[in-house]
């Protein structure tokens, strides 16, 4: 292999004229983090609602929850990106479609919403599993104390379910973070997109993707550390 290694490339100005290649990668990293965090907020809230719907003693609620999960879990994420970005503005009333198309940072908003809805289906499954893994008597005890259904979830079921599903939720968070790279297909200038343009401009493919890889690993490690900290701080004394 005849390859010109150049680790100094990161400190050379990028052709975009706004800084070095390192700056370019870092700005990609920031978009990755912003997209991951914003979409996680949607995924967590919506996913919790959908997961709860699937465990309610109500057939219609179960059906809505199941339909959501099956729809969003079974369409490839890439296809969902395209649907949200290219198809949705066309099928909406024209004024809304135009408004969407001229949004500044449209790839960011679209990516956030798309990922949020996609990951929500996965969070929903975890929440459902967590609630269903609790002893049946817990729901009964809450109900018998006079809690409404909402109160039983709020004060009894969810605090326990979330604790149980913390490890799988962490891995969903990491998946969500990695999935942000799919948004490069709709033009989001996140980390992977930035590594790719660096490679296209400079032909230093190995340096570019080594840097991207290390940055992904680095944030993943931070997330894992944070998650184990959270896990320890919400652990219940005396519980096996």
């Amino acid at each position, binding site marked *: 292999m005849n390859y010109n290694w150049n680790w100094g490339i990161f400190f050379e100005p990028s052709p975009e004229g706004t800084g070095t290649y390192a700056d370019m990668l870092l700005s990609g990293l920031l978009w990755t983090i912003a997209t991951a965090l914003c979409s996680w907020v949607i995924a967590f809230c919506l996913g919790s609602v959908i997961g709860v719907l699937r465990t309610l003693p109500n057939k219609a609620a179960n059906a809505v929850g199941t339909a959501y999960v099956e729809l969003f879990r079974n369409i490839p994420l890439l296809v969902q990106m395209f649907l949200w970005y290219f198809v949705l503005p066309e099928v909406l009333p024209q004024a809304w479609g135009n408004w969407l198309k001229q949004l500044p940072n449209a790839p960011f908003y679209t990516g956030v919403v798309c990922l949020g809805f996609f990951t929500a289906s996965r969070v929903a499954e975890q929440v459902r599993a967590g609630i269903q893994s609790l002893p049946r008597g817990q729901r009964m*005890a809450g109900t*018998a104390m006079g*809690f*409404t259904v909402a109160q039983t979830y709020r004060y009894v079921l969810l605090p326990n379910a979330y604790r149980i599903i913390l490890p799988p939720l962490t891995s969903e968070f990491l998946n969500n973070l990695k999935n942000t790279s799919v948004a490069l297909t709709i033009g989001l200038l996140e980390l992977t997109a930035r590594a790719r343009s660096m490679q296209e401009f400079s032909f230093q493919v190995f340096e570019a993707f080594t840097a991207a890889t290390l940055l992904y690993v680095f944030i993943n490690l931070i997330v894992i550390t944070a998650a184990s900290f959270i896990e320890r701080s919400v652990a219940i004394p005396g519980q096996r």
Partner: protein
Amino acid sequence: MTSTPMPAPTPSNPVAPAGQAPTDDGLQTGNLTQPGTRTGETMIAIDNVSKWYGDFQVLTNCTTSVAKGEVVVVCGPSGSGKSTLIKTVNALEPFQKGQITVAGTKVLDKSTNLPKLRSRVGMVFQHFELFPHLTITDNLTIAQRKVLKRGSEDAKKRGLDLLARVGLSAHAHKFPGQLSGGQQQRVAIARALAMNPVVMLFDEPTSALDPEMVGEVLDVMVELAKEGMTMMVVTHEMGFARKVADRVIFMDRGEIVEDAHKDDFFGKPRSERAQTFLSKILQH
């Protein structure tokens, strides 16, 4: 502890001053409830209740009643529908036919506020079902605060009083997982009592316990019965039934086969099924 002076401990108000927390060993005597007087007023009326799971009939035309201050023990073979029957009283289990009235409120009525009704019907489960993520204090207060809308100070005071009365003051700050089964069940009883229930339901409260812990839980229940609490107790502890029950209900295959005064039941049950059951259960 606040700086307000503690009320002087009296027999009827045995609030243990800080530093003199009662030990686990003895149940504090004192009123767990406002003593009920047996006025003959009906607290629970179960009227011709039937329930099906699909085609399978779990309850068949069950009719009985529990008067205020009465202690009724429900026994019968496994699968006979005892748990199901007791859970219909606070509508934890829905039923398709008949009616149940608790303290004048119809359970099977669209206009009944079920959470409100349930908040005044204490229930104690076989597996305790304390809320594992909450401290003992929070277990005792959360429903008082969120359902009865009591202030946190009032709720805490009532919770801790009851905790003292089941002899567990020293454990207020712990989590359920840090207590033994017997201790958890006593907390569960205190938690139910904290809501000032008009009736207490027990579904095999001692059958998940190691034998050496059965006594401490039964002691609390005996105390409660003596103070006039209206109780419906599913149990196989015939010693408890002998000691405090007024009536014994014997169920088999979803039916109330026998509903008799305690002495009549233990003297000589009328039905053969109850006789067989009794001879089996009294053997060991």
